[in-house]
């Protein structure tokens, strides 16, 4: 675990400027994308990639930085989306920021007690419990027809205007507006998460990941920090949920099923855990791949399963770890004998 995971943090300060420039270039390209390619299908596809990228990044905070495995992180996307959707339908159809805030607060209120139970158990039971609780939320959403629309999903969610400080920037039903809103929120979340991860709090989380016992020996309240990390990750997931329902205007219970959870896990794996940006790239690759495979064959599960197995066996650090294969030392393709 130690050898496999801490490689990404070796040059924390080195190349900071290069990274910043690279980030700005990528953001610039993404921001210009809907004006260059005006096909609504592609705008929506990239939008979905960014929403799932945010979700995958939030899972990375748990998996890559705290060492906690959540199988059903999509449940918190779902909960956030349902709360935002219900708020927009029943309470205030036009206030987008208030709806997102209510979504985050509501999800936190649900996630904290769940997390409190989960962190009381060890690493393995934690993972199993996320599965059990996730399926519990799925069952509730699926069976509570009167509130959530059950199998049919939550329909007729209004598209509020996106307003900022008195200006109306556009309607969230417009793909381009929604795309830019998602991009902006994704970038804010990425920067906030980056800051949190590189704060003393983030170091505590990494200490817990590396060795829970030692972390507790130096006086860290492991359960408390795990719960805080969990809550932070669930809040980020609920933001992605809010964006999801604003972009789709619809959510069904399958979004919260264990299969969708496995997809999120795969995005993190594909991109490389413990890197923050990796999972966002992973989400992009995964959604492209899913789009492609599902048009090719109906037996997509076989391929998804096979890809996961091969990834874990041969490329545990994912896309971000691709460079390792070509490293001078210890790489799979060695350039120089040791």
């Amino acid at each position, binding site marked *: *675990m130690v050898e*496999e995971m801490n490689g990404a943090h070796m040059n924390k300060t080195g190349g900071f400027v290069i990274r910043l420039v690279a980030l700005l270039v990528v953001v610039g390209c993404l921001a210009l994308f809907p004006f260059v390619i005006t096909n609504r299908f592609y705008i929506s596809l990239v939008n979905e990639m960014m929403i799932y990228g945010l979700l995958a990044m939030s899972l990375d905070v748990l*998996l890559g930085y705290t*060492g906690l*495995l959540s*199988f059903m992180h999509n449940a918190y996307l779902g909960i956030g989306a349902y709360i935002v959707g219900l708020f927009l339908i029943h309470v205030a159809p036009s206030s987008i920021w208030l709806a997102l805030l209510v979504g985050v607060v509501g999800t936190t209120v649900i996630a904290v007690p*769940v997390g*409190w*139970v989960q962190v*009381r*158990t*060890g*690493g*393995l*039971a934690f*993972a*199993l*419990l996320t*599965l*059990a*609780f996730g*399926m*519990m939320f799925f*069952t*509730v959403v699926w*069976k509570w027809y009167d509130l959530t629309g059950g199998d049919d999903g939550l329909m007729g969610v209004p598209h509020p205007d996106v307003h900022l400080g008195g200006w109306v920037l556009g309607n969230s039903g417009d793909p381009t507006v929604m795309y830019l809103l998602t991009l902006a929120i994704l970038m804010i979340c990425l920067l906030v998460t980056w800051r949190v991860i590189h704060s003393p709090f983030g170091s505590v989380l990494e200490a817990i990941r590396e060795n829970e016992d030692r972390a507790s020996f130096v006086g860290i309240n492991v359960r408390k920090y795990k719960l805080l990390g969990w809550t932070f990750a669930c809040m980020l997931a609920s933001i992605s949920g809010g964006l999801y329902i604003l972009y789709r205007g619809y959510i069904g219970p399958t979004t919260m099923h*264990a*299969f969708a959870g*496995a997809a999120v*896990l795969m995005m993190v*794996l594909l991109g490389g855990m413990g890197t923050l940006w990796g999972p966002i790239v992973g989400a992009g690759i995964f959604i492209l791949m899913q789009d492609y495979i599902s048009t090719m064959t109906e*037996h*997509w*599960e*076989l*391929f*998804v*399963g*096979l*890809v*996961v*197995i091969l*990834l*874990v*066996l041969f490329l*545990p650090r994912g896309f971000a770890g691709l460079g390792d294969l070509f490293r001078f030392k210890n790489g799979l393709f060695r350039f120089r004998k040791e």
Partner: protein
Amino acid sequence: MSVIATAVDITLNSLVLSGVFLIVAIGLNIVYGLSRVMNLAHGSLYALGAYAGYTLVSVGLNFFVALIIAPVIIAILGLIIERTVIAPMRKRSIVYTLILTYGLMFFLDGLIKYFWGNEPHFIELPAFMKQTLPILGTHYPVFRLMTLLITAATMAGLMLFLGKTKIGLILRAASHIPEMVSCMGINMTYVHVGAFALGCALAGIAGVIAGPLYTIDPIMGHEMLLSSFVVIVIGGLGSLRGAVVAALLIGVVQTLAEFFVTDLAMVIVYMMMAVILAFMPRGLLGEGRFE
């Protein structure tokens, strides 16, 4: 129907359900206890067992012959799985094993859908097992009673195997201190492989007896996987006695919940698990060893 008849029905149903939970959960627990591998594909192996039983019975074999052959097939499959993908994971963090077996679950589900399709199947039973037996005013299906017998026989066999044979002795010792066992000149690789195959065989048995109880469909394994997690988490990871207690508890609670509130039965089970874990984080009997 009288109150007594309903009560008898509920009692027997919950025992049958507990029995199936128990066999699946014990298989999962044996693999975890000996190899520290939490096999998320266990539910899919159970489903494969049911499908294997279905195919064997539909080609004309006797149900009881299928009950023996299907677990052997699943055990061989487990052997292959252990050697090809689980063994390379031994030195890595358990997170990777979990993700790997999760991928395996998808793969096996994909295989099931590829070979048997999405539609539900039913195992054809021998004529005498289709009858019902009058017990205290209710007519109880003979097959369900047979299931109870098979469960009891399986558990008794397992206990005798672990308690009285030399291999069982090695397995029990390995669940206590694996390093010591390997110091005694016993190849731990065989222990890991054996444990995995044994767990898979148990999943296969459960699959075959669950076939006629419920419909056989590709998602049957998922529900069972979640239920057996609940069982082993409540009972204590790796604790065989804990699994017995927890399986009985979950079987009774789930049957009662299904009888009274139908739709949200699983929610009640999960809530109960949350409450138990909030006060006893290591499960009812603690993280255990084989007794």
